[in-house]
């Protein structure tokens, strides 16, 4: 490790060369100048794509002009090229937007393309004053008796990162192909995608482990460490991880499933390693719930065997109306709402004699559990309209208060209360 630090510190020695300092100052001056001229205002007439290319090309041009009489501007040219590459990524981003959804592009760009670009820029920069291949074999220490070099560490980190970030799209592609082959449902496809990702990541991380020198002895040591760790700090993490995998195979909590959480239907968006991400329609909230919760607690699902949901509306009608007629009107009304399924047929029931009305229950089926609230509203509106049309009254509670005779406020005075009469 000290050797690597020494190598990195040693690069400062290039500042002893005036040509190097001059190049760095030129890069600094050009970037500051670019900000000072306020490009957004001055280049407003240009097409946005062209605007991205102006500054880098100007830098490359300046570097070329300095090189003509024999100046050294390798660093300036490189800075210009990097700037150009960075801006071209913006253009690529705009092109990809035509093919893929915004969220996917954003993830692809921020997690894969730009980090990868920066790594390449860094390595290429190092090769301008040192040999990355030589730096890579610097010994950092020993791991389970094997030499750990910079190369091993960087490759291990890079591969792990790529496995975690870059396997999503390929796994989705393979899952899509499998869906076409075996004709499974969308939620099964998503589950397949996750399983493929976990398998690839698992194999990849094992390979990375062997690359940095893990062997059977090391695995035993890690297993020993894990057994202690499981008892203390990482028990919950491990429990959530295993629960997630179990739920995935079981199929009860897969992306696309609808679960009831605190009385609200929520759609499973993502089954992660630690927690499940659910989306609640009511307030567009995303809930992160540890996988362990679904594993140990009771959960209500509307999508375990099918996606239908039975909904219910209770309504009262005045005692003066024939219940047979009311029941018929309710069932016909439910059938008239487009998003209510015809089969199973809606069913109205007379359920209770209330204080001011006879209570009826209208039960009907819908195909999208997440749309329940909206459909309830539509059915309620249809009932109100139908009742009005048919002259059926929806009574509100009425109370008759009977006032008895009010007793006199004052009673006749008694003889004892009268004062004695005086004799004159």
């Amino acid at each position: 490790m000290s050797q690597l630090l020494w190598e990195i510190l040693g690069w400062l020695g290039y500042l002893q060369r005036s040509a190097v300092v001059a190049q760095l100052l030129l890069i600094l001056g050009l970037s500051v100048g670019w900000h000072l001229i306020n490009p957004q205002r001055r280049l407003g007439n240009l097409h946005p794509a062209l605007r991205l290319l102006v500054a880098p090309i100007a830098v490359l041009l300046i570097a070329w002009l300095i090189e003509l009489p024999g100046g050294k501007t390798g660093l300036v040219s490189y800075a210009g090229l990097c700037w150009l590459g960075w801006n071209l990524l913006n253009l690529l981003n705009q092109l990809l937007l035509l093919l893929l959804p915004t969220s996917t592009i954003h993830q692809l760009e921020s997690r894969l393309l730009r980090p990868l670009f920066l790594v390449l820029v860094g390595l290429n920069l190092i090769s301008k004053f040192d040999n990355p291949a030589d730096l890579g074999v610097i010994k950092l220490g020993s791991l389970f008796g094997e030499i750990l070099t910079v190369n091993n560490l960087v490759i291990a980190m890079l591969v792990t990162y790529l496995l975690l970030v870059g396997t999503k799209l390929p796994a989705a592609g393979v899952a899509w192909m499998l869906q076409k082959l075996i004709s499974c449902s969308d939620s099964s496809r998503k589950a397949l995608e996750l399983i493929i990702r976990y398998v690839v990541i698992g194999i990849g991380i094992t390979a990375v482990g062997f690359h940095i020198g893990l062997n059977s002895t090391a695995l035993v040591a890690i297993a020993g460490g894990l057994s202690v760790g499981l008892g203390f700090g990482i028990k919950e993490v491990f429990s959530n991880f295993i629960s997630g995998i179990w739920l995935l195979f079981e199929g009860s909590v897969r992306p696309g499933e609808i679960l009831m959480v605190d009385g609200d239907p929520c759609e499973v968006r993502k089954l992660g390693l630690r927690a499940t991400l659910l989306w609640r329609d009511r307030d567009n909230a995303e809930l992160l719930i540890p996988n362990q919760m679904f594993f140990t607690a009771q959960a209500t699902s509307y999508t375990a065997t099918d996606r239908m949901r039975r909904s219910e509306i209770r309504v009262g009608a005045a005692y003066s109306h024939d219940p047979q007629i009311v029941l018929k009107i309710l069932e016909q009304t439910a059938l008239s709402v487009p998003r209510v399924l015809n089969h199973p047929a809606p069913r109205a029931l007379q359920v209770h004699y209330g204080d001011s009305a006879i209570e009826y229950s209208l039960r009907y089926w819908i195909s999208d559990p997440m749309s329940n609230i909206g459909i309830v509203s539509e059915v309620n509106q249809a009932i109100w309209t139908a009742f009005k049309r048919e002259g059926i009254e929806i009574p509100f509670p009425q109370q008759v208060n009977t006032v008895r005779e009010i007793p006199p406020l004052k009673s006749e005075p008694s003889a004892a209360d009268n004062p004695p009469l005086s004799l004159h």
Partner: protein
Amino acid sequence: MRARLAASVLLSTLALSGCSRLGNELPVMLYLAMVIDQDSKIDTATQTDFRQRIQLIINDFRKIKPNVEVQVALYKRANLNQELQRRNASDLGPDLVVTDAPQANQLLSEGLTDELPVKSFNRYETDQGLWERVKLDDGRITAQPMVIYPQIACFNREIVQNPPTTLQELLQQGASGTRVGLAVNFSELLWTAGSLGAIQSLATANDDQTLTPENTEAMVAWLGWLQRASAQQNITFFQDQGQLENLLNDGELDWVSCNSNSLLRLRKQMGENLGVSPLPSGPAGTASPMNAVRVLALGANSSPRQRDMAVSLAKFITNPMVQRNLSLRSLAFLPVNPAVAVPVRSSRTLATLMQSREDSMLHEPALAGLAHHRSIDRDGSQVLVQLVFGASNPRSSQESLVKALEGGS
């Protein structure tokens, strides 16, 4: 916003210019690019080995110039030109380049290194013959010779008790079961030309002079011997000495030609089983090994302080004490300073290296000329490959070789 920007620029400028001013008090950082052996790969062991070698020199150099630090970067020989071009384009090239003489000549020809200011050097501290190896046609000296890596024979002591001293004995030992490995690379197989009397013919062809019938026959005889040797079951030709050394270490070969540069590595791997001897002589005389010379060239981008320090180091390298220490500590190099007496009685390896050096000296004028040939290693090796694998006969190979030699110097 603008004030903040201006302040940042001012601070950065001050910091950068401050670094330049401080440079007069800070240690001088020398960047050294070093070429690894042919066929070696850049790994932790190679890196440690090469850095230790440089450190031996730098530790001594610090006794007279304490204010110096050296950072080493290893490169493969084939990549060095390209890497130097890339680094020099930004003025970030190394201050010193350690490589072999032919490559140093090529680097100066391409403007990737600077000429050695030889007038300020004590030229007598370097063998006069070696200066010829690092001299361009226009008279510029490309580098300072550092050490000599003689070409010798390496063998497994467990199998080969008495190493062959003549080519005849080599063939006999091969016939009796010793697995012999030879390199098909022209410069690494050139030693056999001395033993078989063809070295002068090659030099004549290289000088673009007309070959006499005797010259031609000597070359054909040499090539004929190589073809007969390759026909033997236990004598095998490989691409280069790097492969031979690896196979010797793996126990798949028993006797190979090798470079003393590899002795440190082979000694570590084979221990006491490693034996060394001079290359076998032949009916025409001693072997003519093309002993490699490690040289130190000056980079093209140094600051004045770095250049002064680099020149001081280049001068220091031929110091008799340093040269003697290098030989004794490594037991793998020979000094370039003719005034340094190598203690051959104290080490059999050093005696072998000296013997190889003396053999080479007998053919030095011819070898120096061939060393300057621009493409004989590539073209000559192609001719030899065709020959040893039976695709051409000695006569046609001789003609091809003469063509390859003509006009290359």
